[in-house]
């Protein structure tokens, strides 16, 4: 493909990676969250370019609509408004960076050096197929996912519920010391 789509691709790619890098390095955690949002959006764009319409939609809905919001909430809840410093200086950079760079080198080298049996990608809506697959071939995972979500739900609820066991827990702490 060529022409505008190509540019769109580069734009999306740039947005994705650039935003991701910002997430990694921005000191202020709120900005990081926003950057993450852009990165996800970029990914969604890539999905569209890859004719994964359903996925793109899911990406927008769940990530942008759900997870980011969650993260925001978390940021606010986990930082007392009293102390305004939401900035989050990072540390332990150099070794981490080193590892990540090497890793990046390895991964991309592997990516470009490998001769994949590349076919011409065709643009067709995938939603129907996905739905059909989820009901037939991937039924079991689908069901299992439901159980998983149930457990996660209960867990989240349990943890965020103000615990009745706080006092005796505290006393337990005493007992430990």
């Amino acid at each position, binding site marked *: 493909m060529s022409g505008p789509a190509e540019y769109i691709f580069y734009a999306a790619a740039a947005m994705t990676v650039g935003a991701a890098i910002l997430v990694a390095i921005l000191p202020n*955690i709120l900005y990081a969250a926003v950057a993450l949002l852009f990165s996800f959006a970029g*990914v969604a764009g*890539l999905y569209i370019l890859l004719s994964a319409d359903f*996925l793109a939609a899911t*990406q927008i809905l769940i990530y942008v609509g759900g997870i980011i919001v969650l993260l925001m909430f978390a940021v606010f809840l*986990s930082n007392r408004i009293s102390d305004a410093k939401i900035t989050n200086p990072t540390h332990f950079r150099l070794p981490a960076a080193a590892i*990540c760079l090497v890793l990046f080198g390895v*991964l991309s080298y592997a990516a470009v050096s490998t001769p994949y049996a590349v076919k011409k990608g065709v643009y067709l809506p995938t939603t129907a197929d996905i739905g059909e697959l989820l009901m037939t071939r991937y039924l079991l995972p689908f069901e299992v996912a439901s159980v998983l*979500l149930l457990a996660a739900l209960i867990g989240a609820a349990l943890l965020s519920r103000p615990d009745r066991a706080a006092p005796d827990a505290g006393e337990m702490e005493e007992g430990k010391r």
Partner: protein
Amino acid sequence: MTLDKLLVIAAALFCCGLYTVMTRRNAVAVLMGVELILNATNINFVAYSFFLNRMMGGQIFAVFVIVLAAAEAAVALAIFLRMFSTTGTVEVDAADQLKG
């Protein structure tokens, strides 16, 4: 737009995610890193399924990854909040009572 370009993008995303996980102090930020990693994986899957003549398995996998990412995020954030309410912080290096 070719497969290897996409793979490189995914790799970049993956590494950013990993870097975030390793360098961030704030647990929430660390979680962001994890999300980045998952997205990198998804890009891989989608790209493969597009270029390797519409293998749907990849997209299915991506769907599940997104779902699980959501679940994981929910649980993780709940845990972070719990941590905040007990220790008053979500700094990961504040939580180092367990060691040795």
